[in-house]
């Protein structure tokens, strides 16, 4: 038990952080209130540095999860990107309210202050992501997933006091609940078909079923339902429809969060679930075909959907859908190349996507947050830095070499080709080419076109998000230098506990012989 808790230290740190934030946020002492984000970052930093320490200790043995190495990678990634995300939302929440208090126009009321809970929820959601890696069974998995999503619903709603944010939250929540129910029912069917909730045991049950002529139909349906429920989290077709609306409605900082955290959670959950059926002899055909269809639809619908958009956030929402499609290639390709590629891609995508949204978050035009393409036209005239980071982020998302995004795509390509999924690769190539159109529009508008004459110029009003954008852009450029390290870590994260599998499989055979 202690072993198990030891590896949850990062989560505990974040949990503590969440509490401190929640309390600090309603402190009447304004300096503390205003620095909740800073507090959250401190906890994130501590968590980030605790991960290597925790996993470096040899005194404790890691519990038998499906992918024991996953935790280290995901937790570091979540903490790191989380740090960027916290900075992105810096100055977002309660800005007007605090200003009014500072000016003496308003009085502090804990019920109206949101900053504390926002950051607490943010940390909780990240905790959820971290917990997913440690999931041993479906209960844990379910709870962790809910821990990821429930805070995000609230975050969307309180991210800004606007009707659209509330509408977005409503859509996000209701459809999220629907998909969670589907997923849960899938879990139930998995339980029905195997009689256990522990992932390792499910694996054994499945391999027994495989040996007896294939997976039970109920198991396949359960798996598919669970996966489709999770597709909502990663915004993959056909469960992607909410994404553009919600991404557009929420504040940019929260959108950045939505595009990364639930996606990571969903992706890891899918990987964990699929690892119970295993890639050794290929996924079961029904599941593989379904994933294939989903991947193709996601790539195509995501990329073509973005073509028509006038809203940058909506466009990036579609782009985020498309990226899920790319990552599904890696999921289909399997553990040897595919899953490490997915993990690397998640990292790269998280950074570059955050950079893109952070740029948007930093800007405002005439007192309003920017959203439409018109708003970022001619950005270079007022803020070359914002324009440059926007362009670099877009280029990286598009996958222009040598930016970081390219390498992620390259790894996925390699994995797909190595898995023989040539058709998927062709679809990916074509849809990547299509995506060039709208990414180039982002680049072109911000760096090349002249600003619109009417209305005010778009300006940088928030510095922290801009800093995040610049950092993200720098990482996008310099990332290839550390790519090797990331790849090695990702590779380690996906190493299946072969020894245990090897031990368990012969024992099954022995059992069979005895019977």
């Amino acid at each position, binding site marked *: 038990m202690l072993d198990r808790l030891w590896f949850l230290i990062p989560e505990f740190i974040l949990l503590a952080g969440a509490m401190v934030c929640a309390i600090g946020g309603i402190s009447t002492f304004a300096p503390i209130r205003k620095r909740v984000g800073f507090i959250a970052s401190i906890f994130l930093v501590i968590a980030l540095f605790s991960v290597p320490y925790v996993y470096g200790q040899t005194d404790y043995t890691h519990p038998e999860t499906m992918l024991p190495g996953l935790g280290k990678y995901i937790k570091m990634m979540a903490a790191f990107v989380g740090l960027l995300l916290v900075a992105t939302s810096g100055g977002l929440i309660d800005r007007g309210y605090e200003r009014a208090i500072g000016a003496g126009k308003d009085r502090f009321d804990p019920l109206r202050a949101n900053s504390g809970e926002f950051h607490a929820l943010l940390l909780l959601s990240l905790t959820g992501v971290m917990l997913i890696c440690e999931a041993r069974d479906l209960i844990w998995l379910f709870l962790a997933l809910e821990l990821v999503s429930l805070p995000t619903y609230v975050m969307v709603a309180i991210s800004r006091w606007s009707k659209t944010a509330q509408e977005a939250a409503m859509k996000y929540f209701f459809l999220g609940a629907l998909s969670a*129910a589907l997923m849960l029912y899938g879990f139930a069917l998995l339980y029905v078909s195997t009689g256990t909730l522990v992932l390792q045991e499910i694996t054994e049950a499945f391999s027994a079923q495989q040996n007896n002529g294939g997976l039970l139909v109920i198991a396949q349906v359960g798996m598919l339902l669970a996966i489709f429920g999770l597709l909502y989290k990663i915004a993959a077709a056909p469960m992607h429809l909410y994404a553009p609306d919600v991404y557009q409605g929420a504040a940019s900082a929260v959108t950045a969060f939505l595009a990364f955290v639930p996606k990571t959670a969903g992706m890891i959950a899918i990987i964990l679930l699929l690892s119970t059926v295993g890639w050794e002899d290929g996924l079961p055909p029904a599941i593989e075909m379904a994933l294939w269809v989903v991947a193709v639809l996601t790539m195509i619908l995501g990329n073509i959907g973005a073509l028509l958009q006038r809203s940058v956030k909506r466009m990036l929402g579609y782009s985020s859908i498309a990226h899920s499609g790319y990552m599904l290639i890696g999921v289909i390709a399997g553990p040897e190349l595919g899953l490490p590629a997915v993990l690397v891609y998640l990292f790269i995508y998280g950074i570059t996507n955050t950079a893109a949204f952070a740029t948007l978050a930093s800007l405002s035009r005439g007192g309003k947050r920017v959203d439409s393409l018109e708003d970022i036209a001619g950005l270079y005239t007022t803020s070359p830095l914002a324009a440059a980071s926007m362009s670099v982020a877009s280029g990286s998302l598009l996958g222009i070499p040598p930016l970081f995004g390219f390498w992620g795509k390259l790894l996925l390509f390699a994995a797909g080709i190595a898995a023989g999924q040539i058709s998927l690769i062709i679809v990916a190539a074509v849809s990547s080419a299509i995506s060039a159109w709208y990414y180039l529009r982002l680049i072109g508008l911000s760096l090349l076109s002249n600003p619109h004459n009417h209305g005010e110029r778009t300006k940088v009003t928030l510095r922290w998000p801009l800093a995040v954008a610049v950092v993200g852009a720098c990482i996008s450029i310099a990332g290839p230098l550390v790519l090797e390290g990331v790849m090695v870590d990702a590779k380690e994260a996906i190493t299946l506990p072969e020894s245990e599998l090897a031990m368990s499989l012969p024992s099954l055979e022995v059992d069979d012989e005895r019977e």
Partner: protein
Amino acid sequence: MMLASFGAATLASYLVVSGILLVIGVVGFLVRRNLIVMFLCTELMFQGAAIAFVAAGRYYLDYSGQVMVIFILTVAAAEAALALALVVFMHRQRDTLDPDAYGELAE
């Protein structure tokens, strides 16, 4: 593997019930024009899953299914709180709970 005393047919009937609940939930979610009812339908789906868990847990003589149900109920409660808060928000906004009234974010 240890199996419970009641036969497979009985498990199937539980599963049918849970399936029916799921379908009712889905259909209700799709056709009802009230946010609260829609949320209740998702609850219905959750409960469908819960029934399946309980039945299977009994079938396999495995308590983890029942543990799961406890957690499902907890999560459902949390969701309900969230849902009600949102519904209040929405009602304040438009004075209606018809989901179709909230279509500002669209293409």
